[in-house]
Protein backbone atom coordinates (compact mmCIF):
# COMPACT_ATOMS: atom_id res chain seq x y z
CA UNK A 1 0.00 0.00 0.00
CA UNK A 2 1.36 3.41 -0.91
CA UNK A 3 0.58 6.34 1.39
CA UNK A 4 -1.60 9.16 0.07
CA UNK A 5 0.22 12.33 -1.09
CA UNK A 6 -1.05 14.20 1.97
CA UNK A 7 0.29 11.56 4.36
CA UNK A 8 3.60 11.45 2.48
CA UNK A 9 4.09 15.19 2.67
CA UNK A 10 2.91 15.22 6.28
CA UNK A 11 5.54 12.63 7.24
CA UNK A 12 8.24 14.47 5.33
CA UNK A 13 7.42 17.74 7.01
CA UNK A 14 7.44 16.06 10.40
CA UNK A 15 10.82 14.38 9.80
CA UNK A 16 12.44 17.54 8.46
CA UNK A 17 10.87 19.68 11.17
CA UNK A 18 12.16 17.38 13.89
CA UNK A 19 15.68 17.21 12.43
CA UNK A 20 15.61 20.95 11.78
CA UNK A 21 14.70 21.90 15.33
CA UNK A 22 16.99 19.39 17.00
CA UNK A 23 20.05 19.43 14.76
CA UNK A 24 20.04 22.04 12.04
CA UNK A 25 18.88 25.03 14.05
CA UNK A 26 21.62 24.87 16.74
CA UNK A 27 24.38 24.17 14.21
CA UNK A 28 23.05 26.87 11.90
CA UNK A 29 22.98 29.27 14.82
CA UNK A 30 26.67 28.67 15.47
CA UNK A 31 27.52 29.28 11.83
CA UNK A 32 25.50 32.48 11.89
CA UNK A 33 27.11 33.71 15.12
CA UNK A 34 30.63 32.85 13.93
CA UNK A 35 30.40 34.71 10.67
CA UNK A 36 28.13 37.48 11.94
CA UNK A 37 30.87 40.06 11.43
CA UNK A 38 32.54 38.50 8.41
CA UNK A 39 35.35 36.04 8.11
CA UNK A 40 37.98 38.20 9.89
CA UNK A 41 37.15 37.65 13.58
CA UNK A 42 36.88 33.81 13.47
CA UNK A 43 40.10 33.53 11.45
CA UNK A 44 41.84 35.75 13.97
CA UNK A 45 40.47 33.72 16.87
CA UNK A 46 41.63 30.47 15.33
CA UNK A 47 45.14 31.64 14.48
CA UNK A 48 46.09 32.54 18.05
CA UNK A 49 48.89 30.30 19.39
CA UNK A 50 46.60 28.62 21.93
CA UNK A 51 43.95 27.85 19.31
CA UNK A 52 46.51 26.48 16.86
CA UNK A 53 48.02 24.31 19.57
CA UNK A 54 44.56 23.02 20.50
CA UNK A 55 43.91 22.03 16.88
CA UNK A 56 47.31 20.34 16.73
CA UNK A 57 46.64 18.40 19.95
CA UNK A 58 43.22 17.25 18.81
CA UNK A 59 44.64 15.97 15.54
CA UNK A 60 47.48 14.30 17.47
CA UNK A 61 44.91 12.47 19.63
CA UNK A 62 43.18 11.24 16.47
CA UNK A 63 46.53 10.18 15.01
CA UNK A 64 47.30 8.12 18.12
CA UNK A 65 43.90 6.70 19.14
CA UNK A 66 42.56 5.78 15.70
CA UNK A 67 45.41 3.47 14.57
CA UNK A 68 45.65 1.88 18.03
CA UNK A 69 41.93 1.19 18.20
CA UNK A 70 41.79 0.01 14.59
CA UNK A 71 44.48 -2.61 15.08
CA UNK A 72 43.05 -3.64 18.43
CA UNK A 73 39.49 -3.58 17.14
CA UNK A 74 40.12 -5.81 14.11
CA UNK A 75 42.20 -8.24 16.19
CA UNK A 76 39.60 -8.37 18.91
CA UNK A 77 36.74 -8.87 16.45
CA UNK A 78 38.63 -11.76 14.83
CA UNK A 79 39.13 -13.32 18.23
CA UNK A 80 35.47 -12.93 19.18
CA UNK A 81 34.08 -14.30 15.93
CA UNK A 82 36.64 -16.87 14.82
CA UNK A 83 37.80 -18.41 18.10
CA UNK A 84 34.88 -19.54 20.18
CA UNK A 85 35.63 -19.94 23.86
CA UNK A 86 33.81 -19.40 27.12
CA UNK A 87 35.51 -16.11 27.94
CA UNK A 88 34.09 -14.46 24.81
CA UNK A 89 30.97 -13.19 26.57
CA UNK A 90 33.09 -11.52 29.24
CA UNK A 91 35.43 -9.91 26.71
CA UNK A 92 32.39 -8.76 24.75
CA UNK A 93 30.95 -7.14 27.87
CA UNK A 94 34.20 -5.43 28.82
CA UNK A 95 34.51 -3.95 25.33
CA UNK A 96 31.15 -2.23 25.81
CA UNK A 97 32.29 -0.61 29.05
CA UNK A 98 33.37 2.70 27.49
CA UNK A 99 29.83 3.03 26.07
CA UNK A 100 28.24 2.35 29.42
CA UNK A 101 30.49 4.42 31.68
CA UNK A 102 30.39 8.21 31.62
CA UNK A 103 33.61 9.72 30.19
CA UNK A 104 34.05 11.74 33.39
CA UNK A 105 34.20 8.50 35.37
CA UNK A 106 36.77 7.15 32.91
CA UNK A 107 38.83 10.30 33.43
CA UNK A 108 38.59 9.93 37.20
CA UNK A 109 39.65 6.29 37.14
CA UNK A 110 42.70 7.13 35.00
CA UNK A 111 43.47 9.94 37.44
CA UNK A 112 43.36 7.49 40.37
CA UNK A 113 45.52 4.94 38.57
CA UNK A 114 48.22 7.26 37.24
CA UNK A 115 48.13 10.11 39.77
CA UNK A 116 50.69 10.46 42.54
CA UNK A 117 49.91 7.61 44.94
CA UNK A 118 48.03 5.71 42.24
CA UNK A 119 48.92 2.09 41.40
CA UNK A 120 51.01 2.91 38.36
CA UNK A 121 51.59 6.62 38.96
CA UNK A 122 54.37 6.47 41.56
CA UNK A 123 56.37 3.80 39.74
CA UNK A 124 56.09 5.60 36.43
CA UNK A 125 57.09 8.97 37.88
CA UNK A 126 60.17 7.35 39.44
CA UNK A 127 61.09 6.17 35.97
CA UNK A 128 60.61 9.70 34.72
CA UNK A 129 57.28 9.24 32.92
CA UNK A 130 54.55 11.69 33.49
CA UNK A 131 51.18 10.39 32.38
CA UNK A 132 48.78 12.88 33.90
CA UNK A 133 48.60 16.48 32.66
CA UNK A 134 50.51 15.47 29.56
CA UNK A 135 50.01 13.79 26.20
CA UNK A 136 50.25 10.12 27.33
CA UNK A 137 47.35 10.52 29.75
CA UNK A 138 45.22 12.32 27.18
CA UNK A 139 45.99 9.64 24.62
CA UNK A 140 44.98 6.93 27.11
CA UNK A 141 41.68 8.70 27.77
CA UNK A 142 41.02 9.12 24.04
CA UNK A 143 41.79 5.46 23.33
CA UNK A 144 39.59 4.34 26.21
CA UNK A 145 36.48 6.29 25.25
CA UNK A 146 36.65 5.34 21.57
CA UNK A 147 37.66 1.70 21.97
CA UNK A 148 34.41 -0.15 21.10
CA UNK A 149 33.61 1.37 17.69
CA UNK A 150 35.86 -0.65 15.39
CA UNK A 151 35.08 -3.89 17.25
CA UNK A 152 31.33 -3.28 17.13
CA UNK A 153 31.33 -2.42 13.41
CA UNK A 154 33.65 -5.27 12.41
CA UNK A 155 32.08 -8.18 14.32
CA UNK A 156 28.80 -8.35 12.32
CA UNK A 157 30.64 -8.08 8.99
CA UNK A 158 32.99 -10.89 9.97
CA UNK A 159 30.04 -13.03 10.97
CA UNK A 160 28.33 -12.31 7.68
CA UNK A 161 31.25 -13.20 5.39
CA UNK A 162 31.74 -16.57 7.10
CA UNK A 163 34.87 -18.69 6.83
CA UNK A 164 34.50 -20.35 3.43
CA UNK A 165 36.50 -17.75 1.51
CA UNK A 166 39.31 -18.08 4.06
CA UNK A 167 39.21 -21.86 3.80
CA UNK A 168 39.31 -21.63 0.02
CA UNK A 169 42.39 -19.40 0.31
CA UNK A 170 44.12 -21.90 2.58
CA UNK A 171 43.49 -24.81 0.20
CA UNK A 172 45.06 -22.62 -2.52
CA UNK A 173 48.24 -22.41 -0.47
CA UNK A 174 47.81 -19.14 1.42
CA UNK A 175 49.12 -18.99 4.99
CA UNK A 176 47.21 -17.27 7.80
CA UNK A 177 48.93 -13.92 7.21
CA UNK A 178 48.33 -13.95 3.44
CA UNK A 179 44.73 -15.00 4.00
CA UNK A 180 44.20 -12.10 6.39
CA UNK A 181 45.65 -9.44 4.09
CA UNK A 182 44.27 -10.73 0.80
CA UNK A 183 40.88 -12.16 1.80
CA UNK A 184 39.68 -11.22 5.28
CA UNK A 185 40.68 -7.56 5.42
CA UNK A 186 39.37 -6.63 1.95
CA UNK A 187 36.08 -8.36 2.80
CA UNK A 188 35.56 -6.47 6.06
CA UNK A 189 37.00 -3.14 4.92
CA UNK A 190 33.68 -1.28 4.96
CA UNK A 191 32.90 -2.32 8.51
CA UNK A 192 36.39 -1.28 9.59
CA UNK A 193 36.16 2.02 7.71
CA UNK A 194 32.87 2.88 9.35
CA UNK A 195 34.36 2.01 12.73
CA UNK A 196 37.31 4.30 11.97
CA UNK A 197 35.00 7.19 11.11
CA UNK A 198 33.06 6.77 14.34
CA UNK A 199 36.29 6.47 16.34
CA UNK A 200 37.64 9.63 14.74
CA UNK A 201 34.44 11.55 15.48
CA UNK A 202 34.45 10.37 19.07
CA UNK A 203 38.11 11.33 19.65
CA UNK A 204 37.63 14.73 17.98
CA UNK A 205 34.79 15.59 20.30
CA UNK A 206 35.99 14.00 23.56
CA UNK A 207 35.59 16.36 26.48
CA UNK A 208 34.85 14.68 29.83
CA UNK A 209 37.68 12.18 30.26
CA UNK A 210 40.30 14.43 28.68
CA UNK A 211 39.33 17.40 30.89
CA UNK A 212 40.21 15.46 34.01
CA UNK A 213 43.49 13.85 32.94
CA UNK A 214 44.83 16.85 31.01
CA UNK A 215 44.34 19.59 33.55
CA UNK A 216 43.34 21.73 30.56
CA UNK A 217 46.45 23.93 30.47
CA UNK A 218 46.12 26.46 27.63
CA UNK A 219 48.75 26.04 24.95
CA UNK A 220 49.95 22.78 26.50
CA UNK A 221 47.28 20.18 27.24
CA UNK A 222 44.22 21.81 25.81
CA UNK A 223 42.46 20.04 22.95
CA UNK A 224 39.97 21.81 20.71
CA UNK A 225 36.83 20.82 22.68
CA UNK A 226 38.52 21.97 25.89
CA UNK A 227 39.49 25.22 24.14
CA UNK A 228 35.88 25.74 23.11
CA UNK A 229 34.65 25.00 26.63
CA UNK A 230 37.13 27.33 28.27
CA UNK A 231 36.54 30.16 25.79
CA UNK A 232 32.83 29.88 26.45
CA UNK A 233 33.32 30.02 30.23
CA UNK A 234 35.51 33.11 29.85
CA UNK A 235 32.85 34.85 27.72
CA UNK A 236 35.15 34.73 24.67
CA UNK A 237 32.23 33.74 22.49
CA UNK A 238 33.99 34.49 19.23
CA UNK A 239 36.70 31.88 19.97
CA UNK A 240 34.14 29.38 21.26
CA UNK A 241 32.03 29.60 18.09
CA UNK A 242 35.02 29.56 15.78
CA UNK A 243 36.47 26.52 17.58
CA UNK A 244 33.14 24.74 17.30
CA UNK A 245 33.10 25.42 13.56
CA UNK A 246 36.60 23.98 13.16
CA UNK A 247 35.52 20.84 15.04
CA UNK A 248 32.48 20.48 12.83
CA UNK A 249 34.61 20.92 9.71
CA UNK A 250 37.07 18.26 10.87
CA UNK A 251 34.24 15.80 11.44
CA UNK A 252 32.73 16.63 8.05
CA UNK A 253 36.09 16.07 6.36
CA UNK A 254 36.30 12.58 7.90
CA UNK A 255 32.85 11.68 6.60
CA UNK A 256 33.65 13.12 3.20
CA UNK A 257 36.90 11.16 2.90
CA UNK A 258 35.03 7.98 3.69
CA UNK A 259 32.29 8.55 1.13
CA UNK A 260 34.85 9.46 -1.54
CA UNK A 261 36.76 6.26 -0.73
CA UNK A 262 33.50 4.34 -0.91
CA UNK A 263 32.59 5.75 -4.29
CA UNK A 264 36.01 4.90 -5.72
CA UNK A 265 35.72 1.30 -4.51
CA UNK A 266 32.19 1.11 -5.93
CA UNK A 267 33.43 2.28 -9.32
CA UNK A 268 35.98 -0.53 -9.21
CA UNK A 269 33.43 -3.27 -8.63
CA UNK A 270 30.30 -2.09 -10.35
CA UNK A 271 27.04 -3.29 -8.87
CA UNK A 272 25.49 -6.66 -9.54
CA UNK A 273 24.13 -7.02 -13.06
CA UNK A 274 21.92 -10.08 -13.47
CA UNK A 275 22.98 -11.75 -16.70
CA UNK A 276 21.52 -15.22 -16.55
CA UNK A 277 18.37 -16.73 -15.12
CA UNK A 278 20.11 -19.24 -12.92
CA UNK A 279 21.87 -16.56 -10.87
CA UNK A 280 18.65 -15.72 -9.08
CA UNK A 281 17.67 -19.34 -8.67
CA UNK A 282 21.10 -20.28 -7.42
CA UNK A 283 20.97 -17.75 -4.62
CA UNK A 284 17.38 -18.45 -3.67
CA UNK A 285 17.72 -22.21 -3.46
CA UNK A 286 20.77 -22.29 -1.23
CA UNK A 287 20.47 -25.17 1.15
CA UNK A 288 22.84 -26.58 3.69
CA UNK A 289 23.79 -30.22 3.69
Amino acid at each position, binding site marked *: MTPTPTAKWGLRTLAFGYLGLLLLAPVGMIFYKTFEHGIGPPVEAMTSPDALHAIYLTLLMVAIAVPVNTVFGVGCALLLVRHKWKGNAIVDGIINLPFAVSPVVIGLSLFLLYGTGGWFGSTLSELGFQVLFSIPGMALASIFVSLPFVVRETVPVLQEIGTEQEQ*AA*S*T*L*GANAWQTFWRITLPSIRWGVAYGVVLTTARVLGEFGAVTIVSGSISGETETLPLFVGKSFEQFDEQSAYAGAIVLALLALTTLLLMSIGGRKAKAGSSG*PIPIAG*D*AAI*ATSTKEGS
Partner: protein
Amino acid sequence: MGIAVEGACKRFGDFQALDNVSIDVPDGSLTALLGPSGSGKSTLLRAIAGLEDLDAGRVTIKGEDATAKPAQKREVGFVFQHYAAFKHMTVFGNVAFGLKIRKQSKGQIESRVHELLRLVQLDGLAERYPDQLSGGQRQRMALARALAVEPQVLLLDEPFGALDAKVRKDLRTWLRRLHDEMHVTTIFVTHDQEEAMDVAEQLVVMNEGRVEQSGSADDLYDHPANEFVMSFVGEVNQLGGAFVRPHDIQVELDPDERAEEAMVQRIVALGFEIRVEFVLADGTEVWAQLTRAELQKLELREGQIVYLRPDRTKSFSGDEVVAA
Protein backbone atom coordinates in the same frame (compact mmCIF):
# COMPACT_ATOMS: atom_id res chain seq x y z
CA MET B 1 47.71 -44.91 -4.90
CA GLY B 2 45.39 -41.90 -4.98
CA ILE B 3 43.81 -41.13 -1.64
CA ALA B 4 43.51 -43.43 1.34
CA VAL B 5 41.75 -42.79 4.64
CA GLU B 6 42.20 -45.27 7.46
CA GLY B 7 40.18 -45.42 10.66
CA ALA B 8 39.00 -41.82 10.55
CA CYS B 9 37.01 -40.68 13.61
CA LYS B 10 35.56 -37.24 14.22
CA ARG B 11 33.18 -36.07 16.91
CA PHE B 12 31.42 -32.68 17.16
CA GLY B 13 30.18 -32.48 20.74
CA ASP B 14 27.67 -35.32 21.08
CA PHE B 15 27.55 -36.00 17.36
CA GLN B 16 29.74 -38.73 15.92
CA ALA B 17 30.36 -37.40 12.42
CA LEU B 18 32.87 -40.07 11.41
CA ASP B 19 33.03 -43.48 13.05
CA ASN B 20 36.09 -45.46 12.02
CA VAL B 21 35.88 -44.68 8.30
CA SER B 22 38.30 -46.16 5.79
CA ILE B 23 38.20 -45.56 2.05
CA ASP B 24 40.52 -46.16 -0.88
CA VAL B 25 40.38 -43.96 -3.93
CA PRO B 26 42.38 -45.24 -6.92
CA ASP B 27 44.74 -42.84 -8.64
CA GLY B 28 43.09 -40.91 -11.46
CA SER B 29 39.58 -42.11 -10.60
CA LEU B 30 36.39 -40.17 -10.12
CA THR B 31 34.74 -41.26 -6.90
CA ALA B 32 31.47 -40.13 -5.34
CA LEU B 33 30.78 -39.97 -1.61
CA LEU B 34 27.06 -40.59 -1.45
CA GLY B 35 24.83 -40.33 1.59
CA PRO B 36 22.00 -38.43 3.27
CA SER B 37 22.53 -35.20 5.26
CA GLY B 38 24.54 -35.82 8.40
CA SER B 39 26.06 -39.05 7.07
CA GLY B 40 29.57 -37.65 7.47
CA LYS B 41 30.41 -37.39 3.76
CA SER B 42 31.27 -33.67 3.83
CA THR B 43 33.25 -34.07 7.05
CA LEU B 44 35.28 -36.85 5.43
CA LEU B 45 35.97 -34.69 2.37
CA ARG B 46 36.98 -31.74 4.56
CA ALA B 47 39.26 -34.00 6.60
CA ILE B 48 41.00 -35.09 3.39
CA ALA B 49 41.49 -31.42 2.48
CA GLY B 50 42.81 -30.58 5.94
CA LEU B 51 39.92 -28.23 6.69
CA GLU B 52 38.85 -30.49 9.57
CA ASP B 53 41.17 -32.19 12.06
CA LEU B 54 40.51 -35.85 12.75
CA ASP B 55 40.24 -37.16 16.31
CA ALA B 56 41.84 -40.38 15.11
CA GLY B 57 42.87 -41.94 11.82
CA ARG B 58 45.20 -41.30 8.92
CA VAL B 59 44.90 -39.53 5.58
CA THR B 60 47.30 -40.49 2.80
CA ILE B 61 47.46 -38.49 -0.42
CA LYS B 62 49.50 -39.93 -3.29
CA GLY B 63 51.34 -42.24 -0.94
CA GLU B 64 52.32 -39.49 1.47
CA ASP B 65 50.97 -39.23 5.00
CA ALA B 66 49.08 -35.93 5.06
CA THR B 67 47.39 -36.32 8.47
CA ALA B 68 49.50 -33.67 10.20
CA LYS B 69 49.79 -31.30 7.22
CA PRO B 70 47.74 -28.09 7.24
CA ALA B 71 45.31 -27.49 4.34
CA GLN B 72 47.74 -24.96 2.92
CA LYS B 73 50.38 -27.64 2.28
CA ARG B 74 48.20 -30.52 1.05
CA GLU B 75 48.01 -29.38 -2.58
CA VAL B 76 44.35 -30.22 -2.93
CA GLY B 77 41.87 -28.34 -5.06
CA PHE B 78 38.67 -27.80 -3.10
CA VAL B 79 35.34 -26.64 -4.52
CA PHE B 80 32.61 -25.53 -2.11
CA GLN B 81 28.86 -25.92 -2.50
CA HIS B 82 28.31 -22.18 -2.25
CA TYR B 83 31.34 -21.38 -4.44
CA ALA B 84 33.34 -19.45 -1.78
CA ALA B 85 34.12 -16.90 -4.51
CA PHE B 86 36.44 -14.08 -3.48
CA LYS B 87 33.84 -11.36 -3.88
CA HIS B 88 36.26 -8.44 -3.95
CA MET B 89 38.26 -9.91 -6.84
CA THR B 90 37.46 -10.27 -10.52
CA VAL B 91 37.14 -13.68 -12.14
CA PHE B 92 40.76 -13.26 -13.25
CA GLY B 93 41.84 -12.38 -9.70
CA ASN B 94 40.03 -15.39 -8.28
CA VAL B 95 41.66 -17.85 -10.66
CA ALA B 96 45.06 -16.18 -10.30
CA PHE B 97 44.98 -16.25 -6.49
CA GLY B 98 46.86 -19.52 -5.94
CA LEU B 99 49.41 -18.61 -8.61
CA LYS B 100 50.09 -15.22 -7.02
CA ILE B 101 50.57 -16.93 -3.64
CA ARG B 102 53.14 -19.13 -5.37
CA LYS B 103 54.86 -15.98 -6.65
CA GLN B 104 54.69 -16.89 -10.32
CA SER B 105 55.63 -14.26 -12.86
CA LYS B 106 52.99 -11.97 -14.30
CA GLY B 107 53.32 -13.47 -17.76
CA GLN B 108 53.00 -17.03 -16.49
CA ILE B 109 49.94 -16.14 -14.43
CA GLU B 110 48.31 -14.32 -17.35
CA SER B 111 48.67 -17.22 -19.77
CA ARG B 112 47.73 -19.91 -17.24
CA VAL B 113 44.58 -18.05 -16.09
CA HIS B 114 43.39 -17.51 -19.65
CA GLU B 115 44.07 -21.12 -20.51
CA LEU B 116 41.92 -22.22 -17.55
CA LEU B 117 39.17 -19.72 -18.31
CA ARG B 118 38.98 -21.13 -21.82
CA LEU B 119 38.75 -24.61 -20.33
CA VAL B 120 35.78 -23.64 -18.14
CA GLN B 121 34.28 -21.49 -20.91
CA LEU B 122 34.52 -18.18 -19.06
CA ASP B 123 37.16 -16.57 -21.23
CA GLY B 124 35.16 -13.46 -22.04
CA LEU B 125 34.24 -12.80 -18.41
CA ALA B 126 37.70 -12.37 -16.87
CA GLU B 127 37.02 -8.80 -15.72
CA ARG B 128 33.61 -9.55 -14.21
CA TYR B 129 33.07 -9.76 -10.46
CA PRO B 130 31.51 -12.90 -8.93
CA ASP B 131 28.22 -11.14 -8.21
CA GLN B 132 27.87 -10.49 -11.94
CA LEU B 133 27.97 -14.21 -12.73
CA SER B 134 25.26 -16.87 -12.66
CA GLY B 135 25.53 -19.74 -10.20
CA GLY B 136 26.81 -22.15 -12.82
CA GLN B 137 29.41 -19.64 -13.98
CA ARG B 138 30.54 -19.02 -10.43
CA GLN B 139 31.01 -22.72 -9.83
CA ARG B 140 33.02 -23.09 -13.05
CA MET B 141 35.17 -20.16 -11.90
CA ALA B 142 35.70 -21.91 -8.55
CA LEU B 143 36.73 -25.05 -10.40
CA ALA B 144 39.22 -23.12 -12.54
CA ARG B 145 40.59 -21.50 -9.39
CA ALA B 146 41.10 -24.91 -7.78
CA LEU B 147 42.69 -26.36 -10.93
CA ALA B 148 45.04 -23.39 -11.42
CA VAL B 149 47.53 -24.61 -8.84
CA GLU B 150 47.68 -28.09 -10.44
CA PRO B 151 46.46 -29.90 -7.35
CA GLN B 152 47.34 -33.52 -6.61
CA VAL B 153 43.66 -34.25 -6.01
CA LEU B 154 40.41 -32.46 -6.63
CA LEU B 155 37.73 -32.43 -3.92
CA LEU B 156 34.21 -31.18 -4.65
CA ASP B 157 31.73 -30.65 -1.82
CA GLU B 158 28.20 -30.89 -3.29
CA PRO B 159 29.42 -28.77 -6.20
CA PHE B 160 26.07 -28.64 -7.97
CA GLY B 161 23.86 -28.63 -4.89
CA ALA B 162 22.99 -24.94 -5.12
CA LEU B 163 22.15 -24.98 -8.83
CA ASP B 164 18.87 -25.64 -10.55
CA ALA B 165 18.16 -28.96 -12.27
CA LYS B 166 19.02 -27.98 -15.86
CA VAL B 167 22.36 -26.30 -15.05
CA ARG B 168 23.20 -29.16 -12.73
CA LYS B 169 22.77 -31.73 -15.48
CA ASP B 170 24.90 -29.75 -17.93
CA LEU B 171 27.64 -29.25 -15.38
CA ARG B 172 27.90 -32.89 -14.40
CA THR B 173 28.24 -34.00 -18.00
CA TRP B 174 30.87 -31.33 -18.38
CA LEU B 175 32.69 -32.43 -15.20
CA ARG B 176 32.71 -36.00 -16.48
CA ARG B 177 34.34 -34.85 -19.76
CA LEU B 178 36.80 -32.64 -17.92
CA HIS B 179 37.87 -35.57 -15.78
CA ASP B 180 38.35 -37.75 -18.84
CA GLU B 181 40.72 -35.13 -20.23
CA MET B 182 42.66 -34.30 -17.07
CA HIS B 183 42.64 -37.54 -15.03
CA VAL B 184 43.06 -35.74 -11.71
CA THR B 185 42.05 -38.02 -8.82
CA THR B 186 38.68 -36.57 -7.89
CA ILE B 187 36.26 -37.10 -5.03
CA PHE B 188 32.89 -35.44 -5.04
CA VAL B 189 30.24 -35.39 -2.38
CA THR B 190 26.56 -35.62 -3.23
CA HIS B 191 23.27 -36.72 -1.72
CA ASP B 192 21.80 -37.35 -5.16
CA GLN B 193 22.21 -41.02 -6.14
CA GLU B 194 21.37 -40.32 -9.78
CA GLU B 195 24.12 -37.69 -9.95
CA ALA B 196 26.60 -40.04 -8.28
CA MET B 197 25.80 -42.88 -10.69
CA ASP B 198 25.91 -40.58 -13.69
CA VAL B 199 29.31 -39.06 -12.96
CA ALA B 200 31.38 -41.40 -10.81
CA GLU B 201 33.22 -44.62 -11.56
CA GLN B 202 33.24 -45.63 -7.93
CA LEU B 203 30.65 -44.89 -5.28
CA VAL B 204 31.10 -44.87 -1.52
CA VAL B 205 27.78 -44.96 0.31
CA MET B 206 27.87 -43.43 3.79
CA ASN B 207 25.35 -43.38 6.60
CA GLU B 208 25.58 -42.19 10.20
CA GLY B 209 29.32 -41.66 10.03
CA ARG B 210 30.12 -45.07 8.57
CA VAL B 211 30.81 -46.49 5.12
CA GLU B 212 27.98 -48.85 4.24
CA GLN B 213 29.37 -50.11 0.95
CA SER B 214 31.63 -49.06 -1.89
CA GLY B 215 31.81 -50.23 -5.46
CA SER B 216 30.61 -49.46 -8.96
CA ALA B 217 27.09 -48.19 -9.60
CA ASP B 218 26.02 -51.62 -10.96
CA ASP B 219 27.47 -53.39 -7.94
CA LEU B 220 25.58 -51.24 -5.51
CA TYR B 221 22.31 -51.42 -7.42
CA ASP B 222 22.36 -55.15 -8.08
CA HIS B 223 24.14 -56.38 -4.99
CA PRO B 224 23.46 -53.96 -2.18
CA ALA B 225 25.11 -55.00 1.07
CA ASN B 226 22.17 -54.03 3.23
CA GLU B 227 18.75 -52.46 3.36
CA PHE B 228 20.12 -48.94 3.66
CA VAL B 229 22.19 -49.19 0.49
CA MET B 230 19.35 -50.87 -1.38
CA SER B 231 16.92 -48.11 -0.51
CA PHE B 232 19.42 -45.30 -1.00
CA VAL B 233 20.68 -46.20 -4.47
CA GLY B 234 17.22 -46.87 -5.90
CA GLU B 235 13.54 -47.16 -5.14
CA VAL B 236 12.45 -50.10 -3.04
CA ASN B 237 9.27 -51.81 -1.75
CA GLN B 238 8.65 -54.39 0.91
CA LEU B 239 6.66 -57.35 -0.37
CA GLY B 240 6.26 -60.70 1.35
CA GLY B 241 8.96 -60.01 3.92
CA ALA B 242 11.60 -59.17 1.33
CA PHE B 243 12.76 -56.10 -0.59
CA VAL B 244 11.90 -55.60 -4.23
CA ARG B 245 12.58 -52.84 -6.75
CA PRO B 246 9.41 -51.31 -8.29
CA HIS B 247 10.40 -52.48 -11.78
CA ASP B 248 10.73 -56.05 -10.52
CA ILE B 249 7.04 -56.33 -9.61
CA GLN B 250 4.81 -58.21 -12.02
CA VAL B 251 1.13 -57.33 -12.01
CA GLU B 252 -1.17 -60.33 -12.65
CA LEU B 253 -4.91 -60.22 -13.20
CA ASP B 254 -5.46 -63.82 -12.03
CA PRO B 255 -4.58 -65.31 -8.63
CA ASP B 256 -1.24 -67.11 -8.37
CA GLU B 257 0.25 -68.95 -5.40
CA ARG B 258 3.41 -66.78 -5.47
CA ALA B 259 1.49 -63.55 -5.81
CA GLU B 260 -0.12 -61.30 -3.20
CA GLU B 261 -3.55 -59.77 -3.52
CA ALA B 262 -3.55 -55.98 -3.81
CA MET B 263 -5.87 -53.16 -4.73
CA VAL B 264 -4.92 -50.48 -7.27
CA GLN B 265 -5.02 -47.19 -5.39
CA ARG B 266 -3.67 -44.65 -7.82
CA ILE B 267 -2.19 -44.58 -11.32
CA VAL B 268 0.29 -41.78 -12.03
CA ALA B 269 1.61 -41.19 -15.53
CA LEU B 270 5.15 -39.76 -15.42
CA GLY B 271 5.83 -39.48 -19.12
CA PHE B 272 7.15 -42.79 -20.41
CA GLU B 273 6.96 -44.62 -17.11
CA ILE B 274 3.80 -45.23 -15.12
CA ARG B 275 3.75 -45.39 -11.36
CA VAL B 276 0.99 -47.63 -10.00
CA GLU B 277 0.32 -47.51 -6.27
CA PHE B 278 -1.25 -50.49 -4.53
CA VAL B 279 -2.43 -51.29 -1.05
CA LEU B 280 -2.05 -54.89 0.21
CA ALA B 281 -4.57 -56.78 2.33
CA ASP B 282 -2.61 -55.98 5.49
CA GLY B 283 -2.58 -52.24 4.64
CA THR B 284 1.04 -52.06 3.36
CA GLU B 285 1.54 -49.64 0.51
CA VAL B 286 3.57 -50.80 -2.49
CA TRP B 287 4.22 -49.29 -5.89
CA ALA B 288 5.27 -50.74 -9.19
CA GLN B 289 6.91 -49.16 -12.19
CA LEU B 290 5.26 -50.10 -15.50
CA THR B 291 5.68 -48.96 -19.06
CA ARG B 292 2.84 -47.31 -20.93
CA ALA B 293 2.44 -50.43 -23.06
CA GLU B 294 2.20 -52.72 -20.03
CA LEU B 295 -0.47 -50.53 -18.50
CA GLN B 296 -2.53 -50.53 -21.68
CA LYS B 297 -2.31 -54.31 -21.91
CA LEU B 298 -3.46 -54.77 -18.31
CA GLU B 299 -6.18 -52.11 -18.57
CA LEU B 300 -5.79 -51.30 -14.87
CA ARG B 301 -8.18 -48.90 -13.18
CA GLU B 302 -8.27 -47.53 -9.69
CA GLY B 303 -10.03 -49.77 -7.14
CA GLN B 304 -9.34 -52.97 -9.13
CA ILE B 305 -8.07 -56.11 -7.34
CA VAL B 306 -4.87 -57.55 -8.82
CA TYR B 307 -2.06 -59.97 -7.81
CA LEU B 308 1.54 -58.84 -7.37
CA ARG B 309 4.40 -61.21 -8.05
CA PRO B 310 7.96 -60.13 -7.29
CA ASP B 311 10.44 -61.08 -10.02
CA ARG B 312 13.48 -60.67 -7.92
CA THR B 313 13.60 -59.96 -4.23
CA LYS B 314 16.32 -59.54 -1.70
CA SER B 315 16.26 -60.29 1.98
CA PHE B 316 19.25 -59.23 3.98
CA SER B 317 19.07 -62.09 6.44
CA GLY B 318 19.84 -64.55 3.66
CA ASP B 319 20.77 -64.56 -0.02
CA GLU B 320 19.21 -63.03 -3.04
CA VAL B 321 16.13 -64.84 -4.26
CA VAL B 322 15.43 -64.99 -7.95
CA ALA B 323 11.95 -66.21 -8.71
CA ALA B 324 11.34 -68.16 -11.87
